């Protein structure tokens, strides 16, 4: 199935993305750094107005603990806003289809899902959410969770950069949040929303329309504020679509052009983050290391996914085709976006393995902002391991990596399997899996394991969909999504805060900006992740594949 022309499509898209990501990183440096920008004249008055409304002292910088607390409290309050809108949507305006309130557990799951940049959806958007819910319940959080990811990443980068250009602390969370919105996410989303309308995605607030089809039956055209949602949900690596079928629904993804623009949008900001890191620490080579390692892992995932021949089958859209369906599925998990353009059940289990890899690693290149954060976590662990093997004190960017840093990084790393595997086991042991009609076979196990992996990785793609709308799955995945979001952010802000204080030596004990280190990093990540998760992949998709072979004999 995959020929030279398909490889050219992949390479062409990558080259385009890397080029624009490099340009974008220059701009991002003006957004988060001290450099002046020509656009300041427009943006500064708008931002000052917003700071005034919030009651913010913009000159105050925060130490890592304060930065983290504000990330957490702001995320909680914005989730509360969304929860209230969803829970009371039946009483609220802009609901022309008169959809009733969501249940408490579904409203809770949805608010915690979107605010943690996960976008696991146990609701069918087109058939249960009012326009107000789609806009204030969903789109608002898609903006703020993406902006929070960016803010956290630049705060961490400032920590790794050391004290040279900061008075103290990691910056001001609200300044980073607001500038991410006014200067990056809102303008780009607006431009691409308009482009999406031009190529066919609806944008309307006047209610669904009823039409009579050629065969005389009635058909509902579910038009709504779709284009404005699709642009931020891809750009912000959120992934929560307007409709339950996500980007497999033609109103959300009408043609190949919209398909590839959406892929490009989810790739652009995560790809620019390693460059931004390089710029902010003033060593472009270190950014290159992160970029090579993440795209190297992404390439490995793609190679695995294209081993089986995928043909157009049930669960795929004819206008998207098998190649773009597989390419998208690997990409949406590699960037932990989670939007889908085909039903996951349509694929050979071999395609699901790289989808798992993307979510288990979370840095291939990972979600907006946090992808590079995870790569820094792996770097801390890797330089420690390499340091042990070479018998030298581990160092990164000239700063000593202490036992305390490594402990924190390991807590961040190990929290991932814990919050995936424990709830998976509980779901089976307490009968909740059985209650939604799933069994103990490899297919069922794969789908339940995928559910919690996707929740923990803040990805959001899933097999369950509205089947997962039970109190147990709503509450358990909500907890997993927040733990999966905020434990690693806590750990990495702590490491960044500690490293910022540390003296830098100019002597280099281990080069991390050459061509060897990214390879060491890739191998170390694969070993860590495979050692942790292989048994579960074995009784899930791998066994599923072997059963398929056995049945075919």
């Amino acid at each position, binding site marked *: 199935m995959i020929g030279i*022309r*398909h490889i050219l499509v992949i390479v062409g898209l990558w080259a385009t993305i890397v080029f624009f990501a490099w340009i974008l990183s220059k701009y991002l440096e003006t957004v988060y750094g001290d450099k002046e920008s020509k656009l300041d004249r427009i943006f500064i008055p708008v931002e000052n107005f*917003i700071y005034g*409304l*919030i*009651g*913010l002292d913009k000159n105050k910088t925060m130490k890592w603990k304060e930065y983290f*607390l*504000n990330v957490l*409290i702001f995320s*909680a309050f*914005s989730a509360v806003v969304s929860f209230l809108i969803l829970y009371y949507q039946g009483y609220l305006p802009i609901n022309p289809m008169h959809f009733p309130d969501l249940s408490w557990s579904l409203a809770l799951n949805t608010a915690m899902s979107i605010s943690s940049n996960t976008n696991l959806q146990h609701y069918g958007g087109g058939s249960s959410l009012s326009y107000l819910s789609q*806009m*204030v319940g969903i789109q*608002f959080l898609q*903006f*703020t969770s993406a902006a929070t990811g960016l803010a956290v990443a630049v705060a961490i980068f400032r920590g790794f950069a050391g004290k040279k250009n900061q008075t103290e602390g990691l910056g001001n969370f*609200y300044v980073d949040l607001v500038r991410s*919105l006014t200067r990056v996410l*809102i303008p780009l*989303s*607006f431009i691409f*929303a*308009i482009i999406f*309308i*031009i190529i*066919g995605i*609806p*944008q*309307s*607030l006047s209610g669904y*329309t009823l039409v*009579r*089809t*050629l*065969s005389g039956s009635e*058909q509902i*055209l579910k*038009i709504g504020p779709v*284009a*404005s949602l699709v642009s931020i949900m891809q750009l912000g690596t959120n992934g929560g679509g307007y*409709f339950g*079928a996500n980007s497999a629904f*033609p*109103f959300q993804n*009408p043609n*190949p052009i919209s398909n590839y623009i959406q892929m490009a949008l989810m790739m652009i900001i995560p790809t620019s983050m390693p460059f931004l890191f390089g710029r902010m620490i003033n060593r472009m080579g270190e950014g290159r290391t992160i970029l090579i390692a993440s795209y190297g892992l992404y390439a490995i995932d793609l190679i695995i996914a294209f081993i089986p021949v995928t043909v*157009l089958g*049930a*669960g*795929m*859209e*004819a*206008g*998207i*085709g*098998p*190649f773009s369906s597989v390419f998208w599925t690997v990409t949406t998990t590699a960037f932990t976006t989670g939007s889908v*353009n085909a*039903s996951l059940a349509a694929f050979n289990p071999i395609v699901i393995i790289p989808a798992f890899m993307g979510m288990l690693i979370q840095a291939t290149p990972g979600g907006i902002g946090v992808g590079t954060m995870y790569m820094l976590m792996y770097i801390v662990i890797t330089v420690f391991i390499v340091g042990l093997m070479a018998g030298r004190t581990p160092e990164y960017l000239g700063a000593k990596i202490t036992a305390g840093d490594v402990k924190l990084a390991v807590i961040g790393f190990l929290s991932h399997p814990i919050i995936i595997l424990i709830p998976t086991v509980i779901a089976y042991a307490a009968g909740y899996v059985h209650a939604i009609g799933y069994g103990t076979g490899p297919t069922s196990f794969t789908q339940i394991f995928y559910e919690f992996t996707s929740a923990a990785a803040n990805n959001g793609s899933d097999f369950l969909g509205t089947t997962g709308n039970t109190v147990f799955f709503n509450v358990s995945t909500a907890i997993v999504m927040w733990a999966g979001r905020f434990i690693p952010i806590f750990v990495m802000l702590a490491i960044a805060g500690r490293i910022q204080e540390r003296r830098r030596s100019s002597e280099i004990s281990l080069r991390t900006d050459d061509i060897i280190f990214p390879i060491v990093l890739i191998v170390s990540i694969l070993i860590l992740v495979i050692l942790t998760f292989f048994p579960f992949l074995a009784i899930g998709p791998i066994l599923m594949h072997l059963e398929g072979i056995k049945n075919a004999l």
Partner: protein
Amino acid sequence: MNKKYFTVPVRAAIVLAVICGLIYPVAVTAVGQGFIQYQANGSVALLNNTTVGSYLIGQSVTSPDLFNIRNDSASGVDPDITVVSALNQATIIHNNTNISMSYLQKLIHNNTRYTLLFFGTAYVNALRLNLELITAFHNRVTLYGEIYANITKS
């Protein structure tokens, strides 16, 4: 804990909910409804000036005289079929209606798109084919005449 720990995040959540959740989508809607109305309202398909659906939402037909969509895809309303499937269906339509194969092949050819723009899987929009067929042959094919009359009546 300091009260300010909560006032700033609460106010930020409310202010940003208004900016990102109301002002932004309403502004996009204003541009869409002002300048790009056809697409913004769902790319509706017309037959004899009457709305009969959207080109983006597939509709199944019961008659073998028309092009039918697949019912197994992820969305359930995939408007597109592969060219291979369209050509197979064209043979049946030709046998039932006597519309020439060359006309049907040309119709499919003119509406063919590719999943990777210039290559990849070839596909066509089934509703587009059906509307062209009905418009061109409603005087000759009984079923098309009935559909045409019904649409015009309602």
